């Protein structure tokens, strides 16, 4: 398990990351979300040791992370690129060698991955001759060789076409299934919702909420939706409820004091027919908007 505790970083007077703590459990995908300037990239850079932390620690399997550990972490920085003029196989082998692989092993693994990504025929092409999507695929391979013990990916899905997004998602799931802790940041909340086992939400340098999807949903207030055969405006007068929305016969409410929804239902059946009454499960994107608002 990769664990971040109390990470803090200032730039001048500005606190970019303030006492950030979260675990990245093995065998699962952890999504890292937050708006621009929330501190995600700064946090990930500190996790990778590219940026020094002013306070806090990053630990790996219970001990403070070492350079040798990090050498085996797969990393995809937010601002990324490779050598534009060098053939892709050559530069991938170079990067793998910097991370401790022998040339022969690196060649074998990279060739296999290039083939898997449909680039088997282009190993000798310089990077700049490839389309942007293919360049992105090469970048992904750079993070995956040698087989990483953890994956730290900053916006791995940005710039990918839908097909590549699916391939990338499969890849991340594969690594998670093999027991590798994976943390990635993304602006695509639905994607994060679909993929992630855990979520860490940052805003203004702090973690505002975190947990599994179920935990986050459970934390959110209970919500019900009701559809009547007459105007629903009267629900505003009921105690213990927060009315989120009323439109003609429809209303969406949040339970403030337990049992208030039952009183609503009793009142509604007394007034007329109830056409629909159900619990609303908020989407992660809604939770996200609420916690970061």
């Amino acid at each position, binding site marked *: 398990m990769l664990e971040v505790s109390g990470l803090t970083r200032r730039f001048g007077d500005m606190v970019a990351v303030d006492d950030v703590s979260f675990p990245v459990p093995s065998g699962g995908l952890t999504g890292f979300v937050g708006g621009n300037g929330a501190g995600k990239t700064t946090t990930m850079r500190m996790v990778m040791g590219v940026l020094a932390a002013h306070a806090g620690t990053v630990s790996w399997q219970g001990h403070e992370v070492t*350079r040798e550990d990090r050498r085996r972490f797969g990393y995809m*920085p937010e601002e990324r690129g490779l050598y534009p003029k060098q053939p892709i196989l050559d530069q991938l082998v170079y990067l793998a060698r910097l991370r401790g692989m022998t040339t022969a092993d690196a060649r074998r693994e990279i060739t296999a991955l290039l083939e898997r990504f449909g680039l088997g025929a282009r190993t000798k092409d310089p990077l700049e001759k490839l389309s942007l999507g293919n360049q992105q695929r090469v970048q992904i391979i750079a993070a995956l060789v040698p087989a990483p013990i953890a994956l730290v990916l900053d916006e791995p899905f940005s710039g990918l076409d839908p097909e590549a997004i699916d391939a990338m998602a499969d890849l991340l799931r594969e690594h998670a299934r093999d027991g590798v802790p994976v943390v990635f940041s993304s602006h695509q909340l639905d994607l994060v919702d679909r993929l992630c086992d855990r979520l860490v939400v940052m805003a203004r340098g702090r973690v505002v909420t975190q947990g599994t999807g179920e935990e986050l949903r459970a934390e959110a207030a209970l919500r019900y939706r009701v559809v009547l055969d007459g105007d629903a405006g009267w629900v505003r007068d009921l105690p213990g409820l927060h009315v989120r929305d009323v439109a003609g016969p429809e209303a969406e409410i949040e339970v403030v004091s337990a049992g208030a929804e039952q009183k609503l239902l009793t009142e509604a059946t007394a007034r007329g027919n109830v056409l629909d009454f159900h619990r609303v499960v908020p989407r992660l994107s809604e939770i996200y908007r609420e916690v970061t608002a």
Partner: protein
Amino acid sequence: MSVVKTKSQPVWQIVARREIAVRATDKSTLIGTAVMLAVIVGVLGFTAWSESREKSYELAYSSAASQAMVEGIAERASGIDEKVHIDPVAVDDADAARHALEEEQADAYLRPTAEGWTLVTLEDPDSELRDVVRQAVEAIVLAGNADAAGTTAAELTRGSAVALDQLEGDSELNAIRYVVGYALAIVFYFASIMFGMTLANSVVEEKQSRIVEMIAAAVPLRQLLAGKIIGNAVIAVAQMLVYVAVGLVGLSLTDFGFALPALSGAIGWFVVFFLIGFVVLSTLWAVAGALASRTEDLQSSSTPITMLLMVMFFGALYLDGVGEIVGSYIPPLSAVLMPMRLVDGSAAWWEPVIAVALLLAFGVALVRFAERLYSRALLQTGGQLSLKAAWRLEE
């Protein structure tokens, strides 16, 4: 799963190997080297060819007396200078001779005067022609005069031989020392600029393409810096050795070959100073690369180091006397001036040893300073940084 060896090759070696491989297959490097070699071979070849070429001169005369003299000169010419050949040409009078000179039908015209002889040419006569004519006329006249006095030229000149013994070495060798000294300064200057710019470019390329963040996450930046500088130095020194070797072989084929034994020690020292000076300056070039965030910034971020190189270069050209001696100890100026003093023979054996020690100490201090700037500036991608701002950056 891949097998990762715990004991793998040191990172700087991997980096240096990539630098060498990329540079050695780079077309502009190969073309540049080929052009430089062609220039060296061409200059030395031309020198050797023009030295060995036989020169023939058409020498005009317009009277019977001068005909005898010109024919005498033609006879003796090869005895005085084996590469000079004189062809006598008859003309009617002085006007016709003038015309022949102007029309380039003759190279010179010899006419008698009251005091002796006059050699007429359009412009300054070639030194070979002048020497041959002078010596031949002198010998012929001396022989004639001796005959008239009832003796021989040998009798007259007996006991007048002056043997030469130079305490300060001969002037030709000194001239060669002078030229070689400047040639080495120029070679150092251009090699530093060319390879320095290439190094700065490869640093900014890594910064601009953002690959440096992936490298920084995997290895210490100090190792990246060391690898880049060492790789670059290997290429530069290899190229320099090729130039020096071709130059020395070429020089040995010319008449200046006699100077080689006297210069070989100094040229050996030059390679040592070149290597150290080059590495020291390379760290500064790497910093210039790290301060820029795009290739376009490089021009301005490398200004301090190009200024320093200019100071070193002009210091090498203009310093002499005490200034030169002092300068030959002050790093990094010593990297150029001490080899120059060794070439011109004015430095004792222990002087380069002290200068190298000082240069190394300076180099170590500078590398520490450069490493801090390099590793901090490298991950700052928002525009060009000043030296001061880079120094204050936090990791």
